[in-house]
């Protein structure tokens, strides 16, 4: 589904991603962990097509197509979804209207008819339950004045509406209390299926207690330095990121 080969990207002169290699197959849940500044969010942004970053090397194939050549909207229409770390507040646009437009843009891309009002409402009611989000919240301006938890729930709600093939969750757990975290994780779990995949970017192991990953990767200084199963996350939680740093520095010194 997603095949990242030697991906390099950065801002201006600074290289942030320095050769990422990662494959994701349908049905899998991958977690990317790493200390601050390791490039986690950059990876999420580059995959979603944020223009702030310049890709300087490597390739990304998504559903058999060259992802890096696509506009952000085409990536979304092909089935890529990014749950933002900081969802944007947009006054004057209700979530309902916005998500309806988005759903129908995606349908149009797939050659499907737009959903009529009744079908849309039915789908919406069903997906609202997944994240226990309230109708009144969705009638309000998109994210405007929402609490941190409400914004993240809204992201997962939108994900559930758009039914992406690959969902990238960029630090969706940051700023969430335990109840909100549980609701969000529950929503994600219900969207898991054999045909879709997740890439969960997180700093902490906490979220992974609720969303069990198939693979865990540790990102450090723009490279995936270790990959493993969920046990790796537990090890990281126990020993902290320093153990990775020490290990790598020791290895570096040994090389020199």
């Amino acid at each position, binding site marked *: 589904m997603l095949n990242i080969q030697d991906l390099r990207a950065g801002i201006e002169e600074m290289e942030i991603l320095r050769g990422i290699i990662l494959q994701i197959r349908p049905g899998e849940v991958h977690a990317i962990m790493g200390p601050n500044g390791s490039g986690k969010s950059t990876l999420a942004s580059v995959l979603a097509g944020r223009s702030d970053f310049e890709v300087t090397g490597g390739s990304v194939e998504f559903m058999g197509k060259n992802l890096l050549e696509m506009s952000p909207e085409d990536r*979304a229409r092909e089935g890529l979804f990014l749950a*933002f770390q900081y969802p944007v507040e*947009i*006054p*004057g646009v209700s979530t309902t209207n916005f998500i309806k*437009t988005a759903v129908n843009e*995606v349908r149009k891309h797939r050659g499907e008819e737009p959903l009529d009002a009744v079908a849309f409402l039915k789908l919406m009611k069903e997906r609202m339950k997944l994240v226990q989000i309230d109708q009144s919240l969705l009638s309000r301006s998109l994210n405007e004045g929402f609490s941190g938890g409400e914004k993240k729930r809204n992201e997962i709600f939108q994900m559930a509406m758009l039914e992406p093939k690959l969902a990238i969750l960029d630090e969706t757990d940051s700023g969430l209390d335990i109840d909100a975290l549980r609701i969000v994780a529950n929503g994600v779990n219900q969207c898991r299926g054999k045909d879709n995949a997740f890439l969960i970017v997180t700093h902490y192991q906490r979220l992974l207690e609720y969303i069990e990953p198939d693979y865990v990767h540790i990102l450090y200084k723009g490279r995936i330095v270790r990959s493993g199963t969920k046990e790796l996350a537990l090890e990281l939680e126990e020993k902290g990121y320093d153990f990775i740093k020490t290990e790598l520095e020791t290895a570096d010194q040994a090389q020199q």
Partner: protein
Amino acid sequence: MSQTIIDKITEQQSNLPGREGFLAEFTDRSMAEFRRLGIPAVKHEEWRYTRVSGLFRLEMGFGTGTSVTAADIDAHRLPDHEEATELVFIDGRFAPALSNIRHNEKELVVMPLSDAATGEHADKIRAHLGHSAAYHPDGIQALNAAFAGIGLFVMVRKGFATEKPIYIYCIADSRTGYVFAQPRTLFLVEAATQVMVAEHYVTLGSGESFTNEVFELCAEQDAVVEYVKIQDEGPMASHVGTTHVRQTGRCLTNAVTISLSGRMVRNNLNMVMEVEHGESHMHGLSLLNGETLVDNHTIVDNMQPHCQSNELYKAVLDEASTGVFNGKIFVRKDAQKTNAYQSNKNILIGEKASANTKPQLEIFADDVKCSHGCTVGRLDEEAMFYLRARGLGEASARALLLHAFAADILDRIGHEPLRRYVDRLVSQRLAYDIHNGQ
């Protein structure tokens, strides 16, 4: 301006109705003022951006006021007009034959200003006509006043409240040549009334027109007035319009000014708050492309204590358009506890678009709350990316954000059918612009 043009205007003026009594005296005095002051030049600080002198050319005609039929107006009627009182100006002349008065006489008085000036309402005309002149002591205002003989008088009678709107269509017919139109309305709102009045400015044909308009409104105690101005004239239209609102009793006045097209548009809006505890709201939206210039000049005059005013003007400036905002707030010595807020927000879309904004506060009382602010910026990149990352194309993401930007002005149009109507105009324009951009 050449002597030939002045002679031409003078001749036209001397043949208008209302050549007796107070109105004759008023219009002649105004004509003399016009001759004395002339046309404001660019060096005049109030007219820095709006260059009107080039509009006074020999080929300008005054129209006959008879070239337009009811069918010509149909395309421009406002929503639910069958229920509304519709008052029509053709080339600046009030046209009773094309107007439809759907309020009864006990509620609403409508008549040519020249008739009102000599009849039972003469004292009211004398008391209110020309009050705006003190706020705009320039030749353009004087010139409109000189043509008041073809104007309109409306009075909403005491205690009358209705959902039925009053629509005023100001139509300039450019089909047979460059037309110069000078509509003038005196609109009195008596005590304990509620009224919704909308002015719609349109052009017939795609020729050149120049509308120089003055709308004076006076609201008495416990009146609730909603005023909407929709300027949607042709691409070759120039427009100088003054809306002058006086509160002579404690009341509430809302004004929304929508500017959508034309070559050069100047909107003056005055709120004169003469009585304690008055409340006024002023909102404006300009949606511009091409080389259109829209210049909004507003004045809030706080004369007495405890008045409250709130002002928000927004502009979306595409291509090589220009937006100007000048907001004056006067707080006089006696007007303690004034609350006055002003804000101007501009989004520049076009590479060659520009915004000029200037707040001007003159405060002579010491216990007041006044604030002003302005922003000029591009569309929010982060919001664009967010929408695109959800599958919206660049064009629809932009239209959605711009529509959202406009929404809090549109929301200020309390009359729902009219709000939907303006919303549709705005949506069409945004879609059109997108189409152009692609």
